[in-house]
């Protein structure tokens, strides 16, 4: 068994050297942390940067306001021309999904409206119609796949479309105004005392 007394001399020497009697030691924590100041500042600036980055993303991202294949304006249709929401989104009161009008429906109207027939955007519409291809609209109000949301129940309950979709009739390009998070749903359900509105399986699937 190795004993203290016959340890190699080198180690003993080092140990002695380390203990210097009378040495003055600064016990201040701040003093010890001083060299870290710049790094800390760097870190803080970095974190602030991240927050700013998130904000910039939120502010400038087109995710909530995507550019659609055709610059369709709800302001003109729903605002100026006072077309009922349900005229185009015709299954909103009878189906979970509100539905987008078929290309045929768009063309049906636009064939007859002489004033706008030749605008660039209508030309795009006509191009789709000529090719018999659907228009790949980008979904703005997209809930995750595990959510069961039914337009029908909400429309039949008397909710205005604008309550969730915002003042659509003033938007040129459609934009998501509600955050569509779970508390956003449940707050409204709580407030309106819906039947079993807080049961998870009302919305989850």
């Amino acid at each position, binding site marked *: 068994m190795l004993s203290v007394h016959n*340890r190699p001399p080198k180690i003993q020497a080092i*140990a002695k050297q*380390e203990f210097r009697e009378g040495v003055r030691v600064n*016990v*201040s924590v701040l003093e*010890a*942390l001083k060299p870290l100041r710049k790094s800390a500042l760097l870190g803080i600036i970095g974190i602030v940067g991240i927050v700013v980055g998130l904000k910039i993303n939120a502010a400038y991202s087109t995710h909530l306001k995507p550019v659609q294949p055709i610059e369709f304006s709800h302001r003109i249709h729903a605002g100026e021309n006072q077309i009922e929401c349900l005229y185009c989104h015709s299954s909103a009161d009878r189906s979970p999904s509100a539905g987008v009008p078929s290309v045929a429906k768009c063309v049906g109207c636009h064939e007859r409206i002489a004033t706008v027939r030749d605008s660039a955007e209508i030309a795009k519409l006509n191009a789709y119609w000529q090719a018999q291809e659907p228009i790949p609209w980008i979904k703005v109000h997209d809930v995750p796949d595990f959510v069961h949301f039914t337009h029908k129940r909400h429309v039949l309950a008397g909710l205005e479309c604008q309550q969730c979709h915002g003042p659509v009739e003033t938007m040129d390009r459609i934009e998501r105004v509600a955050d569509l998070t*779970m*508390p956003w749903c449940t707050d409204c359900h709580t407030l309106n005392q819906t039947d079993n509105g807080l049961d998870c399986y009302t919305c989850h699937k």
Partner: protein
Amino acid sequence: MVMKKLFDHGEPSYEQVNQDVIKSLIETGPKYWMLLATTVGITVVCFIVPWMYQIHMGVGVAGMNRNAVWGTYLSNFIFWIGLSHSGTLLSAVLHITQSDWRKSIYRSAEAMTLFSLMVAATFVMVHVGRLWFIHWSFPIPNPMGLWPNFRSPIMFDVMAITTYLTASSIFIYMGSVPDFAAVRDYSSGLRRRIYTVLSFGWRGTSKEWHTLGWAYTFFAVLVIPLAVSVHSIVSWDFALSTVPGLHQTIFAPYFVCGAIYSGTAGIVTVMYCLRRFLGFERYIGKIHVDYLGKLLIALSMIWTYINIMELFTGWYSGSSAEIEFLKFRLFGFYAPMYWEMILFCAFVPLLMLFKSVRLNWNRMLVISILINIGMLSERFIIVSTSLPRKLLPDSYGFYFPSPAEISITVGSFAMFATLFLIFIKVFPAVSIYEVKETLNPLRRAEKT
């Protein structure tokens, strides 16, 4: 107070204590780095890599199945939680009862607690199916506005382990503050700066000692019931189910006893390594191994008793489910493991009745490792022989760990070793000031 002979090779001087301990911290040879590199390497290869693979693929990488949805990960979790039990608990109990022999071993025992607890917590993360959502089980504000279910035994566990981890780290840290100051005084440059921060600018004034003494005692008082509750709660994860073999009233004391048992054996192993590799022969001596040996014998007997009771209650119930499960445990596929556990944990410890065994470090090392092998098997058996024998015979199954699970188990030991290797270079592995307390005041003036 009657002073027992704490030091085998005569009492060191005060200064010597400082030198011996700090040397172990500061002097780092190539062997240490090689060892550290090895353990880190094993941790990465055996633990991190399979774990990442599992996260990518799904828990199916492990060998669990529909009939045994819990497996090695969970049994390892109990093992490591168990191993964590004696450090803090022993340290706290002995602190309260003012047993001096504790003083040179408690630091590393507490470190063992902390690190095995960390490894245990890692196993929880390895175990869950969707690690990326594990924060949902913490009571922290979240965007869904939905909180965890505090009626769940798993939540008891989350709370208990969080508390235990917090309390244990504070406990070991607070006890180390004066020693950090000592290291600070012995070092220069960056290390001094680090230890200045770590020691909070400790000076050892009477006020500081006084407050530390009080605070430390409160920590000890709070930690003892906590430690008992933690392993009881871990046992309830099992016992609150309806699975034959898990739904046992005796589980809480069984787990607590087993935990202290394996933890104490773990301490012996760690002590051996400290003596052997860090040169603490002077501080860790016969009295420690003797007392720990006696403690182990006592624990082994309690453990054996509870094991017999477990079999007895199962058999006495007359319930077909219980008996079927007992049959599987005693004579089924994992029977050799069960009997190995009985041999290692019930019979081998009896050797320690002989003083010649108890006072021999090498023999004690072997026994302590055997006990922990036995305890690792115990936890594995609890999971792998109960779950496949639940209540519906048609759903009887079988569980065998997959290579990933075995590898992660091996890796967890390497991870523990890594943490411990880092610990001995950061924390004074033997408490400087408490060892000094046990010394004859006259030796204080002596120079080496």
